[in-house]
């Protein structure tokens, strides 16, 4: 069973006006438990609209959003509960930190959930540990932290709500390679530990190749390709035609193949390409 599902979803901005724009056209998508799915596509392809629909920030113009097979808009007054179950981390979430201390900032959402102080404290320490920050940041002012640390605090704020589905808009943008690895690594860990579903927007094909299970490719409000990472990257011409990119390593492997060397295997990660090359020369290299 799918954890969260978009069923025949269309979304119009400015419906009924002369400026009506169809941002999503009859989209169907199923996200399984315990998986990381990446949304890719150009600016304006409908990715952010889709994230907002998943979290119940927007209401589909047509079709349904199903969470555990229940329409999230069945009882519109209870949409707030859905937002606790489907956590949303927006782009550059560090700009949304506002409290005096890291601890208060992370706690903010939980007070709204009606949890008591002991529960909140427990969740905060778990979340902070999860995103790889040490407990002594809790009493610091979030504005004294580095960019990478602030990003983690913002993500911790959502993780501490223990969402079943976590939706993130470019969680690693603007971070250095180590910080990218740490943040994406902690998301994989969250999925493993909680059998959660993560859906994230990313522009880095390399990150996707390493951390995601599935990829959904959007163009002009429609899904033009979807499947496992290896399926989507095996149809890489489609990505290039859509003006997107493929991991650098896949471009190299394809170029080597074009030079007459028949590499076989999963050529979209460095490890995969490395194995393919060793296989090609028969493994006896030393």
């Amino acid at each position: 069973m799918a954890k969260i599902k978009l069923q025949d979803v269309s979304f119009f901005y400015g419906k009924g006006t002369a400026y009506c724009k169809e941002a999503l056209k009859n989209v169907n998508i199923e996200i399984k438990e315990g998986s990381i799915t990446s949304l890719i596509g150009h600016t304006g392809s409908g990715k952010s609209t889709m994230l907002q629909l998943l979290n119940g920030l927007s209401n589909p113009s047509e079709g349904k959003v199903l969470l555990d097979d229940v329409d999230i808009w069945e009882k519109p007054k209870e949409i707030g509960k859905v937002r606790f179950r489907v956590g949303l981390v927006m782009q550059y979430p560090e700009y949304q930190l506002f409290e005096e201390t890291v601890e208060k900032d992370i706690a903010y959402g939980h007070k709204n959930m009606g949890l008591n102080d002991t529960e909140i404290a427990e969740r905060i320490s778990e979340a902070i540990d999860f995103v790889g920050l040490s407990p002594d940041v809790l009493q610091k002012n979030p504005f004294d932290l580095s960019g990478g640390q602030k990003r983690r605090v913002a993500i911790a704020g959502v993780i501490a709500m223990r969402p079943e589905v976590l939706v993130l808009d470019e969680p690693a943008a603007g971070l250095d390679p180590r910080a990218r690895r740490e943040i994406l690594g902690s998301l994989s860990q969250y999925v493993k530990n909680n059998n959660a579903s993560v859906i994230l927007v990313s522009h880095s094909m390399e990150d996707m190749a390493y951390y995601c299970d599935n990829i959904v490719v959007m163009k002009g409000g429609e899904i033009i390709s979807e499947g496992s990472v290896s399926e989507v990257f095996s149809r890489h011409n489609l990505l290039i035609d859509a003006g997107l990119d493929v991991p650098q390593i896949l471009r190299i492997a394809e170029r080597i193949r074009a030079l007459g060397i028949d590499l076989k295997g999963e050529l979209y990660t460095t490890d995969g390409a490395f194995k393919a090359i060793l296989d090609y020369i028969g493994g006896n290299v030393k």
Partner: protein
Amino acid sequence: MNSDSYIKIENLCISYEEDDGGRTSVLKNISLDIKKGEYLAVLGHNGSGKSTLAKLLNMILEPDSGKIYIEGKDITDPQMTEDDVFELRKKVGMVFQNPDNQLVATIVEDDVAFGPENLGIEPTEIRRRVDEALSVVGMSEHAKSEPARLSGGQKQRIAIAGILAMKPDCMIFDESTAMLDPLGRRDIMNTIEKLNREHGITIIMITHYMDEAARANRIVVLDDGEILMDGTPAEIFENPEKLQNCGLDVPQCVGLVHSLKKQGIKIEGECHTPTACAEAIAAALEKKNGKN
């Protein structure tokens, strides 16, 4: 000083004050020589001091100690007047990360004209500069568009045109591709390289993308406020462990070649760009098969 250096930095230090009154060093005794027409990438983890360095070059920040010379003129001289700073900012332009924070007008060509207008340039000359700048960044057909309707990459190109219209000698890009989609990134990288190649503009490009840095002529790696490495991309990427230890990495192509070399496969030539890497690996594999 060396006559062909455009920017010369000597023993530069800057720190900021902490809440408890103590001071934290951001740049520690940095010295660096940047030549006219150079295409330099600056790498470093978040908080390593890259953006601070960029802001010093444009006098957005002032150093605690040390000197910065631009074309032999000491810009850290306390005698610098406001006019001098103005003059400097005209020469050394800066493009930031977020395109939405850099555009001021509601029409593209007005935005590009904003800089030269403030310099008090003749209207006919402004017209000429705006047209030329938009043509260089490939945005002439959008001259009358609203910036809000453009994509991130297009907005960044407008921001670049706005600087170009002030006729700079040097442009600093502070993670200017970080918020863009792949097409936008490619656009900006091509524009940066065109400015360097065809217009002789000195480029200082701060980035977190190793594959972007690999395209420069020279890379400087900052680590906790100090220069850890300085060399050509081939030299810098020679040592993946050193880069990884300071929170960075090597481009995927370099990583692959290093792993293959460890297996005893002889790969010759520079491998820090995808095409060169593919050809070098293919050549090595053919040679190996020829022997078998």
